[in-house]
């Protein structure tokens, strides 16, 4: 039906946002609320000799001032690490404590030292200026390359290294490299990014002294997980005494997965002063303290045989995880990165070593794609370099090395088993969309205008639908990877879905309703969607890793199975037939071989008004819950091709065309899928051309505002051509794979490869991100200087 699976239904959630009626955390106020403002370190690394809060405490409107000792006195713990890995030598990841407010030491600019709570935001901010902190400054450790020899950041943590992890067969890989006809070597830097969801983080905590319980409104992608971590690990209070509500959330991109210290301080202080406490970051604080993303250095060695087939891959990675280990910081460069190094290529042996380093910078964790963009970038840059070195067309070199479609399920050399895939149609389609075969004519035409035109290919795979719990657990995860959904059918046949996933732009109210509409044959308008409130929804793991549909949507499908199964039994009773003979289609129950029929609404009514009902064998009511733990990851894949023109005089890169062909399996709502791809590509283009989080040698973040951190704006981007192919996922009921991160994963190497392709006639063979006009212009000058020598 037109409102069901596969239809581009317009979004249910739009109207409230378009009319200004969205309710984000900062839009919510509670009677008697006060405002928190944090005193933050303005130096990167220092011992705190003393803190004087006396003047601040006496300032106008100030209700309380707290420092680390106050938190410690109440025994409140800091944020915990949700994933750890073993080191190569068998020892464990170093997990240093992360106090809510500094305990004698600060480790990055923005580290919270004190909180000032006042009657107004202005009063809290003004009083914060009166808090005197006496520092004994220590050397900053701001540079990833030299972090291991820098000053000790955490007591007893050697060489500022959190972990030193490996995956794959080192001996076999080194042997392949030694025996190779050709070894392609490349060193790439994955630039550090700041997620920049448009809604800054915010928290509003309230304590109810009658019930001894707390309510926290917060900007979270996973309210239940936040509640678990806050209650069980940080506050050690009964989980049921904390309600976490993530209302409308203005984008996340990974940065709102974690519990941050500000939320915990608001909860803690709301009880101490027995008033609601609100905190909302200004953008500067977001830049300084939201978990950053990426920041890898990857050294790659790719072994080829005489026929240009890949026979081995070695990747040595050093990554910057910042001052404290954020919740999933360890998983990102290891199990979300090392396991993806086979890409969509048939590579017999792979070895990777990853060193996770501490620096005196903000914590680094997942940002859209999380590990997979880094893997794709290094691999697709290397594939491009390899194609150039062996003199093959970049597309055909990839095609030669694709895992053939008859090789699935395919066991990679780095732990994952791809259930299904067919990569050539994506490549072919993307080439057709961008008219790849006529490119050289366009290059010639551009050169007559003094422009260098280039085309760049990126073929990617990602592991989505995080995560099979057993696999996650075996690999160091401390949480499960399932998702939940409840379906409540009302007596009149309308439906409410309660989901453990969280929508912060993805449009779940629309897509999840489409699944219900398809399965129960009821209008989309008869389905309500509830999420984001730990008191209302079943325990759920939230939204990240392109998992909402592939895990949460499948949980909904399983709950609907249960509803249909029970409904059939009720219908069988009403129609005096055997349940096995009852068929359900388009909202109607029929009995095979008869003209008997009953509507879904009649069955729902019978369930709640059980006057004629098999009560001896069946409970009344019609409400079912399912928890679904996936069998495997899902593996979306595809090819993006970028076409650019570079002005050699200015170094300005213009994106003149973009073709994306992705295989996301079955689509619930193609309109929403396309929107996700557009947004992902834009973030990838931001990484490749514009964005960079830059710390100076003193650990000061030089890019802490939109004046300095270059966000993609409308006039920086082109329109995109987006198409899909479909090989349905083989191990979930909906055949879906997930689409949220693909654009951000595929796009950076496509763009950088296109720039290198454009400038290769000038002798340019490398380009760093972001490829700003200055970077591109210098690369051209350097290449020309080399050519002149």
């Amino acid at each position: 039906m037109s409102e069901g699976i596969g239809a581009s239904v317009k979004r249910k959630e739009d109207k409230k946002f378009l009319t200004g009626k969205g309710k984000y955390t900062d839009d919510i106020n509670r009677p008697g609320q006060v405002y928190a403002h944090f005193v933050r370190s303005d130096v990167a690394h220092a011992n705190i000799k003393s803190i004087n809060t006396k003047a601040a405490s006496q300032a106008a409107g100030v209700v309380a001032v707290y420092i680390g000792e106050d938190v410690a006195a109440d025994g409140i713990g800091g944020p915990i690490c949700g994933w750890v890995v073993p080191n190569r030598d068998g020892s464990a990841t170093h997990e240093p404590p992360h106090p809510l407010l500094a305990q004698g030491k600060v480790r990055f600019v923005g580290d919270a030292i004190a909180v000032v709570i006042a009657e107004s935001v202005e009063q809290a901010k003004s009083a914060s200026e009166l808090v005197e902190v006496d520092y004994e400054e220590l050397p900053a450790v701001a540079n990833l390359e030299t972090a291991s020899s820098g000053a000790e950041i955490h007591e007893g943590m050697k060489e500022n290294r959190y972990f030193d992890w490996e995956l794959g067969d080192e001996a076999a890989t080194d042997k392949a490299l030694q025996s190779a006809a050709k070894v392609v070597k490349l060193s790439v830097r994955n630039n550090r990014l700041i997620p920049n969801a448009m809604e800054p983080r915010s928290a509003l905590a309230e304590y109810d002294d009658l019930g001894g319980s707390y309510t926290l409104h917060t900007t979270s992608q996973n309210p239940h997980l936040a509640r678990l971590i806050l209650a069980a690990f940080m506050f050690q209070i009964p989980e049921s005494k904390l309600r976490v509500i993530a209302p409308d959330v203005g984008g996340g991109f990974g940065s709102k997965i974690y519990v941050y210290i500000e939320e915990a301080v608001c909860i803690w202080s709301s009880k101490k002063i027995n008033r609601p406490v609100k905190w909302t970051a200004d953008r500067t604080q977001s830049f300084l303290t939201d978990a950053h993303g990426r920041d890898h250095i990857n050294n790659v060695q790719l072994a080829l045989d005489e026929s240009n087939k890949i026979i081995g891959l070695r990747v040595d990675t050093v990554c910057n995880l910042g001052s404290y280990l954020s919740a999933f910081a360890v998983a990102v460069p290891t199990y979300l990165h090392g396991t993806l190094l086979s890409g969509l290529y048939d590579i017999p042996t792979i070895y990777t070593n990853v060193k996770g380093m501490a620096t005196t910078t903000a914590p680094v964790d997942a940002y859209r794609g999380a590990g997979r963009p880094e893997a794709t970038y290094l691999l697709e840059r290397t594939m491009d370099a390899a194609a150039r070195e062996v003199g093959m067309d970049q597309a055909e070199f990839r095609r030669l090395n694709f895992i053939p479609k008859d090789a699935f399920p395919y066991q990679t050399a780095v732990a994952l088993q791809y259930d299904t895939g067919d990569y050539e149609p994506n490549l072919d389609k993307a080439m057709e969309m961008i008219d790849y075969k006529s490119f050289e004519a366009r290059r010639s035409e551009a050169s007559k205008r003094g422009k260098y035109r280039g085309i760049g290919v990126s073929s990617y795979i990602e592991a989505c639908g995080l995560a099979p719990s057993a696999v996650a657990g075996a690999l160091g995860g401390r949480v499960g990877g399932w998702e939940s959904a409840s379906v409540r059918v009302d007596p009149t046949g309308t439906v409410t879905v309660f989901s453990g996933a969280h929508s912060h732009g993805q449009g779940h109210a629309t897509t999840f309703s489409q699944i219900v509409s398809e399965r129960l044959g009821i209008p989309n308008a008869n389905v309500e969607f509830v999420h984001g409130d730990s008191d209302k929804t079943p325990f759920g793991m939230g939204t990240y890793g392109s998992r909402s549909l592939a895990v949460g949507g499948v949980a909904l499908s399983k709950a609907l199975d249960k509803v249909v199964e029970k409904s059939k039994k009720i219908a069988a009773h009403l129609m005096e037939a055997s349940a096995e003979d009852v068929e359900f289609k388009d909202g109607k129950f029929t009995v095979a071989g008869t003209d008997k029929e009953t509507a879904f609404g009649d069955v729902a009514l019978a369930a709640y008004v059980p006057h004629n009902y098999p009560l001896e064998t069946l409970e009344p009511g019609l409400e079912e819950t399912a928890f679904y733990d996936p069998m495997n990851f899902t593996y979306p894949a595809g090819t993006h091709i970028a076409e650019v023109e570079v002005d050699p005089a200015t170094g300005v890169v213009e994106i003149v065309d973009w073709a994306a062909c992705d295989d996301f399996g079955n689509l619930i709502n193609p309109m929403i899928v396309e929107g996700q791809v557009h947004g992902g590509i834009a973030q990838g283009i931001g990484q490749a051309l514009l964005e960079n989080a830059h710390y100076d040698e003193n650990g000061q973040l030089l890019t802490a505002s939109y004046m300095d951190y270059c966000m993609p704006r409308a006039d920086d981007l082109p329109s995109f051509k987006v198409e899909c192919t479909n090989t349905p996922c083989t191990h979930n009921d909906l055949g879906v794979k997930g689409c949220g991160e693909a654009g951000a994963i595929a796009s950076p190497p496509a763009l950088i490869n296109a720039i290198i392709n454009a400038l290769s006639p000038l002798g340019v063979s490398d380009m760093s991100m972001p490829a700003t006009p200055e970077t591109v212009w210098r690369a051209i000058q350097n290449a020309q200087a080399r050519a002149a020598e």
Partner: protein
Amino acid sequence: MAEVSLKVNGKVENHEVGENTLLVDFIRETVGLTGTHVGCDTSQCGACVVHVDGVSVKACTMLAMQAEGSEVTTIEGIGSSEKLHPMQEAFHENHGLQCGFCTPGMVMSAIELVSKNKSPSEAEIRDGLEGNICRCTGYHNIVKSVQAGAEKMGG
């Protein structure tokens, strides 16, 4: 503190405000209209765009007192859930929003853009929205929305 009197969405608002109170804080905190958002602290993101006497203004760059005697229109004042403004309709029909946070400012900027240029080209739309940051959509569908909105508005 000082008295300020202005109209917001046609309704007279007389309030005592701080001399340094920003228009955006006045709209959000004093008038209680939270559709106008604050996304940055450097007047860069455009989430707070409102119309002051018909001209789009970043409400974080203006003091409430500077709007004395003005007519301010916010996202809540251009249409209703029963009858959306043509630009709001166009954003809905073209999937021009995802998380919704930048949307009010984006719609207000788009309306002003079209009021000055009844049938803008893609390049003119991209240029005209340069002061509004969206992190979700990649702007592709926002551009489509503004084109469609311009047509609906009679361009």
